[in-house]
């Protein structure tokens, strides 16, 4: 009897691992920044270079930092979702125009609409590097104390917005 049960058990264990591996995205690297303070920076806004933005301004609020670019194809898929979400006014959304030409970034927002409360220009990608950005779009949820609580690699979709982002935001806002 043992002869059949043992291999069966081993097979089942292996299947569980393989099944789990099937659904995993190996490109998604867990960020070491989660649970850490959002890196400080000071950057000019996209529309007005004289105006500066720093994450310090957002202390006391739960907010979203969304890294995008006019050259990024996946951002185009994300854009309508972000437009819809920002119309709900759940929380401030700050956009980072990553490694982009200022005019092209502004053109994109003019043509497709601007879902952001503020947009900043990270033309040389230095801030993106500090935030561990390696593929746009990426979205960070930052809590009232300025700590990064979640990082989404890849576009916001109606599904991950409903199942991951919104519950987390509501939970952080209640704190």
């Amino acid at each position, binding site marked *: 009897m043992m002869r059949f049960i043992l291999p069966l058990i081993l097979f089942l264990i292996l299947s569980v691992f393989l099944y789990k591996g099937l659904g995993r995205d190996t490109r998604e690297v867990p960020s*070491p920044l989660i649970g850490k303070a959002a890196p400080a920076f000071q950057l000019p806004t996209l529309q007005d270079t004289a105006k500066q933005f720093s994450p310090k301004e957002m202390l006391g609020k739960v907010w979203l930092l969304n890294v995008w670019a006019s050259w990024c194809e996946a951002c185009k898929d994300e854009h309508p979702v972000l437009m819809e979400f920002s119309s709900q006014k759940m929380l401030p959304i700050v956009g980072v125009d990553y490694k982009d030409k200022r005019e092209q970034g502004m053109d994109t927002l003019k043509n497709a609409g601007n879902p952001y409360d503020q947009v900043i220009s990270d033309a040389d990608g230095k801030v993106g590097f500090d935030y*561990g950005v*390696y593929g746009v779009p990426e979205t960070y949820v930052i809590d009232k104390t300025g700590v990064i609580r979640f990082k989404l690699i890849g576009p916001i979709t109606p599904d991950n917005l409903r199942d991951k982002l919104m519950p987390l935001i509501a939970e952080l806002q209640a704190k």
Partner: protein
Amino acid sequence: MRYFLIGLFCLLPSLSFAAVAKDIAEDPVIEMRMMHLAEKVRCLVCQSEPVSTSHSEWSHDVRNIMREKMKEGATDQQILDMLVARFGKSVLYDPPVDDETAPLWIAPFVMLFIGGGLLVYQLKKRRSKVVDVTLTPQDEQRAAELLNEPSSKDSQA
């Protein structure tokens, strides 16, 4: 005239020189050091390629940042630490042994131990199955007959 035109066309490629992408530091020592270090870093966009050979934008940026930091006098370890702090341990091709990665390092030895144990167990079990029997004279005669059979057949043939 024809030969003149052909000659003229042959000269055309000389006009098509392109600017070489400036992807090397002025200082060859830093460049060598950087390339050596970049071999140890995984390109997160391409995953199975080191930053040293990858053509992705991201790798290009990482190489530039490495050069910059080296010029500022950072040690190799400081640069690796900086990358790990931002992108996690998976940027290193040779991740350190710590609480998180320990299972990965230990797993092969655990499996070897389990496999070896099973092998020893099976071999022992098999040995215990083989029992010495004392043969009766009849058995011995039968065994001798069976053993001699082929040779007797040979002689018949």
